[in-house]
């Protein structure tokens, strides 16, 4: 399937500081700016409408979240609210177990990210460096799961999780996602780019495999750790279908599922719905701006979105 494209696309950049796609880093000097200090590049005429189209839905959500209910029930729409109503946000927190959903999502996301970093790094290291019985076959089986649509495994996974007694618990959201094939693959590819001599020297000095991994390899693996962390965070925070199947009581819901029930009861209070939506986005947006480089690299290399 995507076997032909994944290895090429998943090649991790070796230089920690080179955010190729991010665009914050200056490109080589031989390419001067295309517009001089006072010249207006015609490309702005293309890029401004593009940026407007991309930003309007988000800005409109933000504006609506600060409007009063009457202002949202008005046509033509009130583009600039007369007075800001930040009380909407407080009202959301009072009306729904929103804080609870937020904490639930945070617990699930942090646990899933931690699990993936630890377990995938360990497995990735074994696949990259240790020759053990059955390594190739197991690795191919792991990779094969990358190509299976979630819908195929969804029903039996539900039955398994039910047998484990984890339906309608946060554990049911965490355990099946604790180790993902793409994380193993990413770590393996990254570890293979590291020079092996350092590890061999440590082994001769009597360090165990686990010791080498934690004391020598992982400290050099910042970019891979960041990429897996950021992608797992995004995936877990935004996941919808699996929580929809496993969770039914409001107190155990994660944000995305909670938002849909909130929408069900607040269809007519758009301002509150938008305030809830803004709050649900804040952590992801915050992380995006803090770690834009890793987001972009991770998205480009794993093909992950939503």
């Amino acid at each position, binding site marked *: 399937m*995507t076997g032909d494209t994944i290895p090429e696309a998943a090649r991790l950049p070796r230089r920690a500081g080179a955010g190729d796609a991010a665009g914050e880093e200056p490109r080589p000097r031989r390419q001067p700016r295309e517009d001089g200090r006072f010249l207006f590049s015609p490309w702005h005429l293309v890029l401004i409408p593009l940026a407007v189209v991309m930003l309007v839905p988000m800005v409109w959500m933000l504006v609506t979240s600060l409007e009063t209910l009457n202002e949202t029930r008005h046509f033509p729409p009130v583009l600039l609210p007369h007075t800001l109503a930040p009380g909407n946000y407080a009202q959301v927190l009072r009306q729904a177990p929103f804080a609870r959903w937020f904490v639930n999502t945070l617990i699930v996301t942090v646990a899933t990210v931690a699990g993936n970093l630890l377990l995938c790094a360990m497995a990735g290291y074994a696949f990259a460096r240790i020759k053990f019985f059955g390594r190739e076959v197991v690795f191919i089986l792991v990779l094969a799961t990358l190509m299976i649509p979630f819908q195929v495994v969804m*029903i039996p996974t539900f039955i398994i999780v039910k047998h484990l007694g984890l339906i309608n618990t946060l554990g049911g959201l965490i355990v099946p996602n604790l180790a993902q094939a793409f994380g193993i693959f990413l770590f393996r590819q990254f570890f293979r780019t590291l020079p092996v001599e350092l590890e061999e020297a440590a082994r001769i000095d009597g360090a*165990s495999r686990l010791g080498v991994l934690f004391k020598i390899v992982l400290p050099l693996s910042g970019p891979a750790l960041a990429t897996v962390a950021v992608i797992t965070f995004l995936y877990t925070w*935004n996941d919808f279908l699996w929580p929809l199947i496993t969770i039914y009581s409001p107190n155990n819901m994660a944000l995305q599922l909670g938002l849909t029930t909130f*929408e069900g009861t607040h269809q007519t209070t*758009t301002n509150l719905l938008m305030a809830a939506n803004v709050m649900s986005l804040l952590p992801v947006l915050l992380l995006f701006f803090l770690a834009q480089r890793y987001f972009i690299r991770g998205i480009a290399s794993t093909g992950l979105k939503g």
Partner: protein
Amino acid sequence: MTRIRRIAESDHFSGWALAFPAVFLIFLFGIVPIIWSALLSFQRTNLLSPPQWIGLANYRALPSDPLFRQSVVHSLVYTALFVPLSVAGGLLAAVALNRRIRGIVLYRTAVFVPVVLSTIATAIMFLWLLDPNFGLINFLLSKVGLGPYGFFDSTSGALYSIVGMTVWGWIGFDVIVYLAALQGIPATLIEAAEIDGARAWSKFRHLTVPLLGPATLFLVVWSTINALQLFDEVYFLTRGGPGTATYVVVYYLYNLAFAQGIAGYAAAIAYVLMIAIMCLTLIQLGIGRRWVHYAS
């Protein structure tokens, strides 16, 4: 004692010890369910009472199931619109964004941000943006004498509204991939074309587009896989409606398995979906191999 130590220090042991936790989880939640799903697809089962083996009956029933046929058509229409629009849109946007001009970081950020938004958050935004009564888009359309449109509420427009919304949500992903590929194009190639007097359009058509071939192939394959799995937006915005206007394969499958408890039949649909995705991917890669030129 020494023998135990020798085993514990062997590569077979340490390799398996390190790999085991992750491999076990992937085995339990990734590989076992694939086989289990295949078994389910040959059964009549609601997951509660004992299953009944019915051979290929689930698969045989599919072609004459009107709702399944509609779902397939809707999924294919959605994919046929979403993939070219998002990939071509991403290409044009990436070419526009691949330059050093003032404010470029802001432009890029504006295009990238929707990529990190969840499907539900995006759907909530567009539900309001496209509201039939108070929506901003209907207001703008009314300024030029159009509308009002029902968008997600309209039988004829709901699927296209979902196409538009998901293209908005995905285009940043295509841009990220294309920008990374564009920056891998050697500047000397572009300069050589300029020295040869190539015009902007012909440079784009005969140089940039072919050099981006591998990225395009990756995006087409990946977008198709994801488009055929459309679910969240349909579940949240339309529940397959109005009527059955937005019934797509995964929504139908979900409904069968988890609302109606017809798990065996749903598993058969999941398998058909998987095989369809694999076939489409192979076809695309096969066509791609003929047309895409890999440098070096």
